[in-house]
């Protein structure tokens, strides 16, 4: 006789850093159904964006997620540039590409480490995060920040890259390739990892199409989509690289796609560095017109989508954000069901979920119906403090 038992994972996830709640319905060891509850990280960014002007939003959306923190502003500036039909200078395009590809390397290494950690292979975790560190150092060198790079700007980029830094970047890339070879060997040729991950959490091609899964999750199931190639933005059509796909759709295939993709990132950055010519980095956009614009970017997890509608003022009327995890996390409904509980942890992590991105807003009420502190209260407190300090300093207008 079998009973149906509910195994809760979360909201404080035992492994992942972000709050989410999975209700696994199990019979014996087998997962028969899953309910995904999200919303623990909802911060109201879409609403907040409607109260900021276009220059500020690039900074705001950068804070949606700390890992893909250049994808969101990138998609946002593309949306505004689509609305305005701005011609962005060539050098700015290449700088944007370099930042985005470096980010992809750091994001994939981060996932690889976490995946190793999830299956109890902590050596991969330590290594992957060790070699991720120099990428953050490069970011610091180029942008001044290890995270939240603040480079994207409507019409171009905020800071130029120095030609003096190119040798350092090239040296890092040269050093990264043997590291990637090592990971390729450690993951793809390791019999333990293969027997742990092969055939686990399979997402079929049809499931990918039904759920609209994106990025490496889709490409590991043989769905050949990549916004960088399909709808080329920046100057992705001027560099040579290839889209990595696998057919199996299991967790192993997703790991392979991500590892092989990092080689392509190296490829793109090298070409961008050599093709970049000195010149302006900003189109100096000054006027806003009414209309609507769509920007999409291939973030490390898939297509990141931003929609902007403007009425001609300096604030958008509507700003819609859809992060790739919003589609990918929903696809766990099929990949997890039918497997065992022990596979659930890695299957749920295989889409590289990012809940910060998936949820974007919060006004919280607790059970006593009393409002507790939320984002608005904090902003208000912060504004009050600023006014108080200005007043005290005698600078109050």
């Amino acid at each position, binding site marked *: 006789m079998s009973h149906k038992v509910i195994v809760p994972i979360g909201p404080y996830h035992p492994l992942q850093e972000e709050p989410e709640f999975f209700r696994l319905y199990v019979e014996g060891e087998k997962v028969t159904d899953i309910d995904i509850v999200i919303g623990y990280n909802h911060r109201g960014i879409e609403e907040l964006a409607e109260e900021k002007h276009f220059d500020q939003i690039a900074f705001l959306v950068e804070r949606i997620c700390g890992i893909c923190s250049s994808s969101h502003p990138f998609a946002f500036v593309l949306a505004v540039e689509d609305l305005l039909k701005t011609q962005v200078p060539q050098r700015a395009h290449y700088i944007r590409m370099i930042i985005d590809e470096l980010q992809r390397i750091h994001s994939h290494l981060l996932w690889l480490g976490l995946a190793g950690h999830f299956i109890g292979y902590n050596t991969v975790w330590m290594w992957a995060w060790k070699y991720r560190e120099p990428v953050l150092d490069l970011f610091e060198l180029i942008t001044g920040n290890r995270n939240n790079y603040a480079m994207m700007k409507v019409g171009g980029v905020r800071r130029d890259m120095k030609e003096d830094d190119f040798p350092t970047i090239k040296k890092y890339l040269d050093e990264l390739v043997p590291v990637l070879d090592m990971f390729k060997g450690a993951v793809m040729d390791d019999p333990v990892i293969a027997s742990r991950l092969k055939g686990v959490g399979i997402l079929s091609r049809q499931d990918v199409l039904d759920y609209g899964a994106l990025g490496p999750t889709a490409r590991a199931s043989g769905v050949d989509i990549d916004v960088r190639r399909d*709808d080329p933005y920046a100057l992705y059509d001027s560099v040579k690289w290839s889209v990595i796909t696998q057919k199996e759709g299991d967790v192993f295939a997703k790991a392979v796609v991500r590892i092989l993709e990092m080689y392509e990132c190296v490829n793109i950055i090298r070409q961008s560095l050599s093709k970049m010519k000195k010149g302006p980095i900003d189109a100096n956009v000054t006027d806003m017109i009414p209309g609507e614009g*769509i920007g999409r970017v291939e973030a490390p997890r898939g297509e990141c989508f931003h929609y902007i509608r403007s009425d001609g003022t300096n604030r958008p009327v509507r700003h819609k954000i*859809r992060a790739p995890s*919003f589609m990918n996390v*929903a696809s766990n409904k099929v990949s997890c069901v039918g497997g065992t509980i022990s596979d659930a942890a890695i299957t749920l992590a295989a889409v590289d979920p990012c809940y910060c991105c998936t*949820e974007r807003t919060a006004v919280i009420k607790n059970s006593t119906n009393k409002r507790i502190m939320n984002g608005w209260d904090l902003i208000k407190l912060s504004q009050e403090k600023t006014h108080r300090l200005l007043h005290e300093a005698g600078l109050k207008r």
Partner: protein
Amino acid sequence: MDINTQIKEKLGNRITEWLEHSPRRIYLTVDKESIKDTASILFNELGLRLSTATAQDLPEGFEILYHFSFDKTGQFFSVRVFIKGKKNPQIESIAPILKAAEWIEREMWELFGIDFKGHPDLRHLLLSDDWPKDEYPLRKDYKKPYEK
């Protein structure tokens, strides 16, 4: 035959407006009643992928943009639907045809109060379950806590 002609042919007179912002960004308007057929034709017959949907609060009602992506050519088709009137906005759910629409319809339901008829599982996605009824945070008339 290119995808633009195919869409025009298959959807026929369901399309009330066709606007090409740029070759890869196309906006088309259809009637509220035909959204289910439209979604079915675009997804099942022409193989477009539902990227997401955007709801908007307008003075005269609501507007939903269903963003479909055709990845072979990189074109992005946004299907626009108007829901007239501010009271009890209703539209048929496309989630029975397109599983990808399930979450986004739940999000639009709780943030805008648009009722999706025929949705298999219409409940809160991002907001907490004890969120007060008739408070829709992305509507323009929503009062934020500090404004009350």
